[in-house]
C-alpha cells in the first residue's frame, strides 16, 4: 500500500467544550441602537460613544476587503450578536466574586486564575465572550505603577489615557474590520507602563469565545512610556461549533523613547472540522507605533487555529533608530486558510526591521505570507531583512508568498530571502529507516523549521508552542 502523506493533522481539538452559563446578550444585528446599547451597558464616557458612532458611520461606507487569498461565504453582519456577557454581579473586586463556573472554565483551559494556582510570574486578564472576568496580580503591578486591567475599567479609571491613545495607531477607518471593531468592541486589555519601569512580570490576556452566535471584538491597547519595557502574551481558544464565529480584534501598541514592547500570540481558535465546517474567522488588525527614538516593538505569533486567518501585525517606525520585528509561525491544516504577514513602515532615520516568517501547510489548506516593507524618503540608513520560509506537508496543501517592497530612499538596504521545502514520503521513509517514527520525524522537522521563531517566545510558551504544533500535526502523515 502506498501510504499517502495526508493524515498527520487530525488530532481532536481539546478546547472545544462549551460552558453552560447564563448570559446577558443583546439581540442579533447591528445598528446605531446596538452601539448606544453597548456603550450604555458599559457605562462609558461620552467620548467613547462618539468614537464608536464615528467608526460605525465610517464602516457603513466601507466594503469588505477582497484582496486576501482566502474564500468564504458572505458574512451576514445582521446575524451576529455583538454583545454577550456572562451574567454576574458587578465585576470582580476580588476573585471570590467571580462565578465559579468561569473560574473552572479557565482552569480547564490551563489558565488557573485563583490565588493558589495562578502562574507564578504571569499576570492574566481573562476575557470570556465580550467581557473581562478577572485580572490577576493587579495590586502587585500597581505597586510598580503598572496599570493592567480590562479596557472597560481603564475607560472608567483612566479615561484620559485611553482617550489619548485609542485609535492613535489604528485609526477608526483604517480598514473594514478595524472600523467594525471600533464601533462595537466590548472589552479587551489595557496596559500602561510608566516611565522607566521594567514590567516585573509577563502580562497575558486569555480570550475565550463561548457563545456560538456572538462575535468577539476585543480591543487591546498597550502604552510603554519612555525607557520602559513589557512582555505581553495572548492566548485564545473557542468551542467547536458547526457555524463560524467572527473575531475582529484590534491591538494597538505605542512605544515612546527607549521603550520596548514584546507582544507574543499563541492563537489556537477552533479551526473547523476536517471538512472545513465551523471555525473562527480571525480578522485582526494589530499595529505597533515606535513613536520614540530607540524604541522597539517585537511581534511573535504562533498561529495554529481559526478557519480563516487574516492578520498582519505591523510596525510603524517613526522614531529614529527604532526597531521593528516580526517572527511568525503559521500552521494550517485540513481546510484552513491563512493570509498573514506583516508591514514594516520605515519613517525615521536608521530604523531597522526583521521579518522571519515560517508557514507550514498540511492537508488541503492554504497558507499565504503577505508582507510589505516600505521605506519613506527620510528614512536614511533604514535596513530590513526578511526571510519567508514555507513548508508543505503532503501534496494537497498550498503555500504562497506575496512580498511587497516599496523603497523611496537610496540609502536604505532591504534584503529578502525565501525558501520552500516539503515534508514528503521520502523524508519520512528515510527517518523511519533510521528507526525514527513518523510522529517523531514530523515533530523534529517542524521544530527545526520553527526554531528561529520559537527562540523569540518566552521560555514556558516556547515549549507549549512546540507541543501545540506537534499535536496539531499528529496523524497528518501516515
Amino acid at each position, binding site marked *: *500500500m*502506498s501510504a499517502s502523506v495526508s493524515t498527520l493533522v487530525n488530532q481532536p481539538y481539546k478546547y472545544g467544550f462549551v460552558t453552560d452559563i447564563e448570559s446577558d446578550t443583546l439581540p442579533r444585528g447591528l445598528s446605531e441602537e446596538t452601539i448606544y446599547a453597548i456603550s450604555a451597558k458599559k457605562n462609558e464616557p461620552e467620548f467613547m460613544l462618539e468614537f464608536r458612532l464615528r467608526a460605525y458611520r465610517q464602516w457603513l461606507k466601507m466594503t469588505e476587503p477582497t484582496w486576501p487569498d482566502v474564500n468564504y461565504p458572505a458574512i451576514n453582519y445582521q446575524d451576529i450578536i455583538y454583545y454577550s456577557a456572562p451574567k454576574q454581579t458587578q465585576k470582580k473586586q476580588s476573585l471570590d466574586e467571580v462565578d465559579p463556573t468561569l473560574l473552572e472554565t479557565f482552569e480547564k483551559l490551563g489558565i488557573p486564575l485563583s490565588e493558589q494556582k495562578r502562574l507564578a510570574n504571569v499576570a492574566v486578564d481573562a476575557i470570556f465572550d465580550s467581557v473581562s472576568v478577572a485580572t490577576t496580580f493587579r495590586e502587585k503591578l500597581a505597586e510598580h505603577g503598572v496599570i493592567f486591567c480590562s479596557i472597560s475599567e481603564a475607560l472608567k479609571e483612566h479615561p484620559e489615557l485611553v482617550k489619548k491613545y485609542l485609535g492613535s495607531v489604528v485609526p477608526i477607518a483604517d480598514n473594514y474590520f478595524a472600523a467594525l471593531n471600533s464601533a462595537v468592541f466590548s472589552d479587551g486589555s489595557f496596559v500602561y507602563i510608566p516611565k522607566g519601569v521594567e514590567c516585573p512580570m509577563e502580562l497575558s490576556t486569555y480570550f475565550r469565545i463561548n457563545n456560538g452566535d456572538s462575535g468577539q471584538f476585543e480591543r487591546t491597547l498597550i502604552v510603554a512610556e519612555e525607557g520602559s519595557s513589557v512582555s505581553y502574551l495572548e492566548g485564545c481558544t473557542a468551542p467547536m461549533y458547526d457555524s463560524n464565529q467572527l473575531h475582529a480584534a484590534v491591538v494597538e501598541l505605542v512605544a515612546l523613547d527607549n521603550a520596548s514592547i514584546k507582544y507574543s500570540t499563541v492563537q489556537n481558535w477552533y479551526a473547523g472540522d476536517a471538512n472545513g465546517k465551523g471555525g473562527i474567522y480571525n480578522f485582526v488588525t494589530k499595529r505597533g507605533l515606535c513613536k520614540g527614538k530607540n524604541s522597539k516593538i517585537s511581534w511573535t505569533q504562533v498561529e495554529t487555529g481559526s478557519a480563516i486567518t487574516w492578520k498582519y501585525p505591523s510596525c510603524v517606525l517613526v522614531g529614529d533608530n527604532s526597531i521593528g520585528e516580526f517572527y511568525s509561525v503559521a500552521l494550517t491544516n485540513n481546510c484552513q486558510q491563512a493570509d498573514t504577514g506583516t508591514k514594516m513602515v520605515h519613517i525615521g532615520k536608521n530604523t531597522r526591521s526583521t521579518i522571519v516568517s515560517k508557514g507550514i501547510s498540511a492537508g488541503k489548506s492554504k497558507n499565504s505570507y503577505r508582507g510589505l516593507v516600505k521605506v519613506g524618503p527620510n528614512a536614511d540608513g533604514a535596513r530590513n531583512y526578511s526571510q519567508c520560509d514555507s513548508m508543505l506537508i503532503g501534496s494537497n496543501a498550498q503555500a504562497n508568498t506575496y512580498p511587497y517592497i516599496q523603497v523611496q530612499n537610496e540609502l536604505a538596504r532591504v534584503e529578502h530571502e525565501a525558501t520552500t521545502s516539503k515534508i514528503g514520503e521520502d523524508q519520512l*521513509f528515510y*527517518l*523511519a*529507516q*533510521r*528507526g525514527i517514527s513518523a510522529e*517523531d520525524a514530523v515533530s*523534529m522537522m517542524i521544530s527545526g523549521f520553527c526554531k528561529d521563531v520559537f527562540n523569540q517566545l518566552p521560555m514556558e510558551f516556547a515549549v507549549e508552542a512546540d507541543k501545540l504544533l506537534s499535536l496539531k500535526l499528529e496523524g497528518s502523515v501516515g
Partner: protein
Amino acid sequence: MIVDNAPTVLSVKNLTANVNDTPILKGLKLEIKAGEIHAIMGRNGSGKSTFSKILAGHPAYEVTGGEVVFEGQNLLELEAEERARSGVFLAFQYPVEIPGVSNLDFLRASYNARRKHQGLEEVDPFDFEDVVRDRLQVVQMDASFLDRSVNQGFSGGEKKRNEILQMALLEPTLAVLDETDSGLDIDALRIVAEGVNQLANEKNAMLVITHYQRLLDYIIPDYVHVMYDGKIVMTGDKELALELEAKGYDWVDELQPVGV
C-alpha cells in the same frame, strides 16, 4: 568472509512484489549468513533497488508473495522503523535532505531508537558527542558536519559518507548498500569502501547492490548474484563480476530462456 556454521541472517524465498500494480520482483531467492558480503548486480530496471526498498519496508512497494525472514523473524510484518531498530540498515542511493534538523540531533535520535529497542539506556547529548566523534574517523568526516542540517548542501560524496557514519553508529546486522558508488569520485569511493570494510565482521552481513563492478574492487564480495527481470539468475564469486564487466549485460540476456 564465509564462516562455517554461521547463522542465517536473511532468508528470502519466492519473493514477488509490485510497484504501482506492475510486477517487479518475480520470485526472488536469496540466503545470507553472518559474516558474508553479497553483491547483487544487474542492469537498470532489473529490480535491484526495488529489492533493497522492500527489505527496508518502503510503503510504496507491495509484496504480493513469498517470504523474507530476518534473524528468524518475519521481516514483512514489521514497520520500516521496527526493521531499522531490529538491525536492518539501508544506505540510500540518494540520501534525503532534511532542512532544519541538525545532523547531530538526527544521529542521536536514530542511535537512541536502536538502543531503546535493544533494551539499552538512551544516551544523553553530551555522551553522544563522544560516541559520534569516535565514529567520524571511520569515514574521515569532519566534526563540522554534525552541526549542519541532515544532508543539506552536502556533496554527493559527503552524503554517502554520512550514510556510512550512520551505519557505523547503528551497527546493523544486515547492511544493504544501494548503489553506494553512484556519483562518487574515486577518492570518495575509496573512503566509503574502507569504511564499510572496517565495519564488516563475522556477526553482520552486507548486501551490496551495484550496477558497476568497480565498487567490488574495494569491497570484496563472497558471493555475486546477477539479477534479471526480478529474479536472481546467476550466482558466483567475485570472478562473476569481472566476467560481467567484460561481457556486458547483453551476455545475461542471451543466456535467458526464450519467453522470459
